[in-house]
């Protein structure tokens, strides 16, 4: 088991300045915001389950940019059909990370069904060419190194513990501020390619 916040910090260390990082509603966005509030982060503060499809669209339309999707097991289970859609569209630049703590931690750590469902197996069955399941920080480091290649989509399932971060902040930017600074990060990269 890895503390989720530690996993998020580890992942963000490997993210390059122009890479896009998308985070799902609830604690994961709050932890990404607290760990490294980059302009190329998109905090999806609502719409549970929508993040992976938004990430797919971005990866397809901005193929020169690495797109990291950071969601939880609850979010992934809510939109399970998106897994085979991502595999079918197979954007090489998409890194899909599921921080799996087997619970809806943001709403009070009620159990999810992912203790009975192996999300990595679902990813393989969906057709992801690279699937890794990690449960310690060294394995996570190795998995993120593999994701630096250009033969995605990559799926990394990070088995995480429930370890609330004391005094964790909320995303302080307004929704349109999040939108505008993220858009400028996407456009900057697309203009550089032209």
């Amino acid at each position, binding site marked *: 088991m890895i503390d989720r916040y530690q996993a998020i910090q580890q992942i963000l260390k490997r993210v390059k300045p122009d890479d896009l990082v998308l985070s799902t509603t609830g604690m994961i966005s709050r932890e990404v915001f607290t760990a490294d509030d980059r302009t190329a982060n998109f905090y999806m503060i609502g719409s549970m389950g929508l993040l992976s499809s*938004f990430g797919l*669209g971005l990866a*397809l*339309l901005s193929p020169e940019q690495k797109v990291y999707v950071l969601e939880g097991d609850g979010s992934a289970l809510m939109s399970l*059909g998106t897994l*085979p859609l991502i595999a*079918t569209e197979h954007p090489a630049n998409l890194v899909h990370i599921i921080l799996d703590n087997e619970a809806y931690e943001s709403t009070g750590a009620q159990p999810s069904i992912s203790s009975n469902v192996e999300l990595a197996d679902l990813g393989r069955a969906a057709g992801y060419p690279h699937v890794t399941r990690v449960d310690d920080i060294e394995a996570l480091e190795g998995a993120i190194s593999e994701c630096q290649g250009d033969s995605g989509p990559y799926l990394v399932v990070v088995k995480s513990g429930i370890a609330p971060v004391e005094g964790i902040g909320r995303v302080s930017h307004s929704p349109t501020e999040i939108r505008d600074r993220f858009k400028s990060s996407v*456009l900057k990269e697309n203009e550089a390619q032209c």
Partner: protein
Amino acid sequence: MDAQTFWEALKGRGFTFFAGVPDSTFGSAYKTMMTDPDIRYVPAVREDVALGVASAAYFTGRRAGVIMQNSGVGNVVNPLTSFSLMYKIPVLLIVGWRGYGGPPNDAPEHWIMGAKSPEFFDLLEMPHETLEPDNLESALDRLIAAMDEGSTPGALLVRAGVIE
């Protein structure tokens, strides 16, 4: 109107990226779109997934649409309220209007949503237009102008038989 005319009008206004779930309302227009080399289409598994995929276009400075049946309106209410309308991310919903006119038109599963479809968009304060055989250009211009002005999603309702 024929399918080619419909897609040319959209392409002419910058819409070249679509995601969706099929509806028989669009008939051959669906096939026309999928074989159009100027259009990139993602066959989504649900209407909310289609909205997520298509909304990415806004961030690359493009326009995009979602193609769906009105039975999928319920599936997009949450992403519309806590994503599209909250962040002000425009996307065009092209909605097949099944059950238009109520019973005995269409199948029973479409009657309630058929009667209520425009009211959903009114409730969400989203601009919407109904496509008629003779209003393609004006309906699209009004709708896109309203979407641009409010940076908001909008809906184009399409009844059976209007696009052939």
